[in-house]
């Protein structure tokens, strides 16, 4: 077990390094010059002082060869220093640190909503004996996956803020302000959870051990929740791990639509202004969250399925 975790941690470091390197290369090849953009901020273009640009270039190390820049930045990144944001001059880590709590609130709430609503939908859809209701419920997940997030957000704002005045349409103030953005973010993610869970529930209900449970005299709820659900939750759990990445990405859209402060807004701003240090920080940070979430999922697996033994550095299924 200990060895397994160590090996997975080493892999995680590898993933982070790869994420950093790829983002570095991509940003380096992008057309445009961040320093020009920065120096020209607030002024009409064409009126930039070349000497000033040169000074800034030197300050950020853009005048060195690419490889030297890479080594330089990587060395500092390892120590947790991603440099200063070009647009504000504040350290990147501080910028991200300030934005993090807002986004964490949003994504964690969205994830909980997605699991509860998506899971509930799957359980009810597969439990009901009414064919039309099942068909109706099972047609919702594909719909939820296919509609664009920003559009869902706008619909929700229109209905619940402008017409009903239940929740604020934008801003970061309190739990009430969290409802609509979290719901918006939860729609596509919850739809995926529902889709996968409903499918694996139907498969599980077809298994021979379900017949054994029926022969014991178990009621339908008992069979559904105690026998089928636990077996069916494994594929859904894998999906949840992958969805964490989607949630971070989705927060960019949702925070923009709802004008919320957070990582998503920071990312959107950094990308538009070509604030390379911030973008790199976001990429590495996103990779970190993703890797951590999936490691967690892999560690939870053996708790749910005793057949999975975590041994000698790899997960072996003994069936």
């Amino acid at each position: 077990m200990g060895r397994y975790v160590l090996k997975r941690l080493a892999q995680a470091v590898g993933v982070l390094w790869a994420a950093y390197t790829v983002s570095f290369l991509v940003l380096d090849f992008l057309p445009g010059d961040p320093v020009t953009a920065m120096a020209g901020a607030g002024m009409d273009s064409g009126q930039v002082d070349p000497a000033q640009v040169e000074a800034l270039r030197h300050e950020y190390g853009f005048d060195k060869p690419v490889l030297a820049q890479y080594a330089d930045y990587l060395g500092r990144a390892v120590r947790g220093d991603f440099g200063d944001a070009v647009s504000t001059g504040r350290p990147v880590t501080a910028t991200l640190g300030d934005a993090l709590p807002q986004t964490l609130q949003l994504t964690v709430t969205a994830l909980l909503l997605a699991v509860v609503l998506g899971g509930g939908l799957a359980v009810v859809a597969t439990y009901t004996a009414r064919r039309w209701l099942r068909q109706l419920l099972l047609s919702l997940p594909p719909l939820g996956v296919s509609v664009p997030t920003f559009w869902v957000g706008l619909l929700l704002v229109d209905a619940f803020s402008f017409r009903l005045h239940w929740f604020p349409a934008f801003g970061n103030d309190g739990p009430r302000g969290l409802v609509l953005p979290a719901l918006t973010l939860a729609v596509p993610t919850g739809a995926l959870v529902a889709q996968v869970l409903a499918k694996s529930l139907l498969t599980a209900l077809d298994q021979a051990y379900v017949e054994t449970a029926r022969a014991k005299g178990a009621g339908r709820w008992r069979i559904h929740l105690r026998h089928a659900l636990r077996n069916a939750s494994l594929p859904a759990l894998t999906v949840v791990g992958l969805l964490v990445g989607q949630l971070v990405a989705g927060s960019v859209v949702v925070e923009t639509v709802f004008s919320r402060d957070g990582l998503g807004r920071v990312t959107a701003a950094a990308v538009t202004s070509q604030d390379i240090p911030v973008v790199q920080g976001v990429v590495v940070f996103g990779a970190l969250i993703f890797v951590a979430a999936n490691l967690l999922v892999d560690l939870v697996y053996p708790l749910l399925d005793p057949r999975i033994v975590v041994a000698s550095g790899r997960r072996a299924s003994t069936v």
Partner: protein
Amino acid sequence: MTDKREDGEGRHGRERGENGDDMTAPLLEIRRLSVSYRVRGETLQAVRGVDLDVWPGQVTAVVGESGSGKSTTAHAVTRLLAANGRIDAGTIRFGRHDLATLSEAELRTVRGARIGLVPQDPTVSLNPVKRIGEQVAEVLRIHGLATRRSAAVEAVAVLDRAGLPDAALTARQYPHELSGGMRQRALIAVAIAAKPQLIIADEPTSALDVTVQRVILDHLQSLTEELGTAILLVTHDLGVAADRAQRLVVMSGGEVVEAGGTRAVLTDPQHAYTRRLLAAAPSLTSVRHRTPVAAAAPVSAAPVSATPSSSAASAAFAEDVPLVEARHLVKEFRLPRSGGETRTLRAVDDVGLVLRRGRTLALVGESGSGKSTTARLVLGLARPTSGQVLFDGTDVTTAKGAQLRRLRRRAQIVYQNPYASLDPRFSIGDVISEPLRAFKVGDRASRLARVRDLLDRVALSAATLERRPAELSGGQRQRVAIARALALSPDLVVCDEPVSALDVSVQAQVLELLEELQRDTGVAYLFISHDLAVVRRIAHQVAVMRAGRVVETGPPEDLFATPRHAYTRELLAAIPGGRLTGAAASRR
């Protein structure tokens, strides 16, 4: 091949009591039961007007081939039918209830508490993520027979009664940690936990080895005798039914064709179908078809094959060189590491075999005895850890590339499951001609001619050529698999349990076909089977394997008459059907 074969004669069979018994009243009384399944908008009648009685404390066996409706009848009793199944008519009287019309909620108080079920396949019938003890305790909890704490204690006691050696340990284990036999005991524990009056056992041992089967059935029988529980035993194995049941119900095409006391039905079968079933049942005393083959056994006397094969021509002067010779074969597998030490499993342990041209060597043994691994080593599908395989005098142990490909051409295989071994998207013509195409034999026209010839040999019509595997029955598919194996006129065909997935009457036909093809083509078979009755019928030489070792070899006549090794005796004793052969003798 198992469609309706009922004819007007004796539609409901006759009821005859054993020893003129006068039991008070049946425990279970099924009258005119009809069940249908809806499959893609069509209604399929699975059970038509079945009458069936189960008396208290007795074992009633329902026998029949696949598709006869026996399993559907058993499942209909507690209405555990698939979602598309429906009881159309009839009554199922159990005590004062009619189970056919009982509400779902009331039915749940009967299921598990008054009628237990022992399912068919123990490997998939336990919930993989729950501990065994929990799964047994659940029955008691559902029916309010125990509290959470007392249920756990009771579960251990029930597991102990079901014959699990260390019940306290088993209760804490998960299904995947138990063998098939132990899982079936756990399921028996589930069935008997609430002390039901009736246990429905649906092919309870057909997924298990023959020795395990005997122990399980013995145990089930003694348990029920102790508690006075009745058993409705569903089985395709007439031998099992004959040994265990007081009453026999024979089903075919969804109807009961004959019913009565076991002895009466076996010694004096009234219905043509029952007689056919009895005749097809392989048993230890029947050597009908084998004898002529044995007479034609010496290699030099083997008839020259109709399709000239290189082996037949060279056979005359290569008489002394066996076709296959294995020397000191060892195969070890590395097991997943546990606790830091590397363990290996010796699947094949110093095995030596000799197979001559035109002969059949049978490998028998239980699952895990290494018989399939041995066959894989002979075919070059796996590399031995040590030892040698000689094919036609040449060492092929380390053959690869072109040499291995030449070996493949001369050695083919027929698999156990004809439902899985044929590509569902290929037409039958494609399936059979694939080896020819793979080895670029002949042109299109000559290949087609060869396929037609092969179809003719395995007694399938030329119209089969265009059909797909799904349109054929199990027996027909296995014929296709045999035709494919013979396409390249190989010297050796490995038959890996070729008939164990087939109904008994189909089994007999396929075995006959294999014998006939051997006479005609001089092919040698390496025949893997757990079924000694089948082996006795087809083999010239038998090797009994256990735990990777060959414990005894010899011609079947000697081996079966005077087994030397204790394990061979155990295997022989475990074969069901003792009463069947007794009955057959008195029938003559």
